[in-house]
């Protein structure tokens, strides 16, 4: 797709800005893990991993680390001082029970009312898999979605209603794409920020659901987020 857009790093940086110091945060698999790399080191963030880790640290140096100390994406990680291990039931108690302040998730589709579809498509023949997506989506205090604005072939992913199977209904708080930052509100989708140089009509054209624009829409400058 041509035209102005944010890089992945810009998108991750933009999400990171919204994560307050002191937050307990769960980053979903894939694109959301980039957020951890760009959070300001001045913030003290405690990362949670569904497989029983609080205070998850970065990947170990090559050749070091514990092969059983992995994150939800099954990649090797470390534990920071103050971190802890616990079993799965406690871990999901944290997720489902509203103890995680912020989660950043990827999505296939999001509806105008914040319905999230991020576990299954309409593709047939593939066995389904769900993991911890549903527990996290219903339980985290704030659900942020980081995703591309459209599919690879240009179809909108923000829709009046999801066509893919739902993960959870009405859970998404804010959407971050390469084009815009959009809030899900009781009055529908409200654009807060748009990438510099993109016309509002063009943003609406690439969005399946109707957008409203905040009074003070800010511009996102590629390379300077």
């Amino acid at each position, binding site marked *: 797709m041509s035209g102005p857009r944010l890089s992945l790093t810009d998108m991750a940086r933009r999400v990171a800005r919204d994560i307050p110091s002191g937050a307990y945060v769960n980053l979903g698999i894939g694109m959301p893990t980039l957020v951890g790399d760009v959070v300001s080191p001045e913030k003290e963030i405690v990362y949670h991993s569904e497989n029983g880790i609080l205070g998850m640290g970065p990947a170990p140096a090559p050749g070091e680390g514990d092969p059983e100390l992995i994150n939800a994406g*099954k990649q090797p990680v470390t534990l920071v001082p103050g971190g802890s291990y*616990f079993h*799965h*039931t406690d871990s999901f108690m944290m997720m489902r029970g509203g103890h995680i302040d912020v989660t950043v998730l990827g999505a296939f589709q999001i509806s105008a009312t914040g319905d999230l579809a991020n576990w299954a498509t309409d593709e047939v023949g593939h066995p389904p898999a769900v993991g*911890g997506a*549903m527990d996290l989506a219903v339980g985290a205090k704030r659900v942020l979605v980081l995703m591309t604005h459209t599919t690879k072939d240009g179809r909108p992913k923000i829709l009046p209603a999801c066509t893919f199977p739902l993960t959870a209904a009405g859970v998404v708080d804010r959407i971050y794409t390469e084009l815009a930052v959009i809030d899900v509100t009781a009055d529908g989708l409200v654009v807060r920020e748009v990438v510099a140089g993109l016309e509002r009509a063009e943003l609406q054209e690439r969005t399946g659901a109707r957008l409203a624009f905040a009074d003070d829409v800010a511009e996102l400058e590629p390379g300077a987020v």
Partner: protein
Amino acid sequence: MIDKRVGSLVEAVADIRDGATVLVGGFGNSGIPVELVHAVLDQGARDLTLVTNNAGSGDSDVAALLREHRVRKIICSYPRTSGSIWFEERYRAGEIELELVPQGTLSERMRAAGAGLGGFFTPAGADSLLAEGKEVRIINGRRHVFEEPLHGDVALIKARKADRWGNLVYSTAARNFGPTMATAATLTVVQVREFVELGDLDPECIVTPGIFVDRVVEVGV
């Protein structure tokens, strides 16, 4: 004298029956009781229902049970991982049944079994296809789906150390489903890296009290 230690893997899995529901600890390749699962492979039990987060990858442990046609049904949250070839092959052939459960629900269903509860209502999955055919109730304004307890005939788990009473401590994130599965099965079998003397484990730090454990076997890893 209470002594839950057994001398061999053969003894540890001796009486697992055909048709048993077997809880297998592990998340990805972390915390899988590989030696115990291979012992079940050698022991020969078939027609098994496996309860495990992933459906194995490569050619080892859970994947080997699938390869050898030992599994009738798998209850898990994320069967599709890189290298889950045997699961995919058996699933496509219609040879195994899949019950897909959100990960927190999988764990909580086993907790309910271990805690003697008749189930619970959870918001996880209540708006999804996974709630189809289940009771849904509005609690505090939100949809919740009823989930039943999930009990195992056998649990196979991996820990780091055990004493002869079966008290356990684990190793980093390999703990995952172990403590919950230990409570949820009629027979809980644990492989450990090492045995320690009774009294050597700090009582403040024992993760699974021996009451939940039936057999422990030392495997050195």
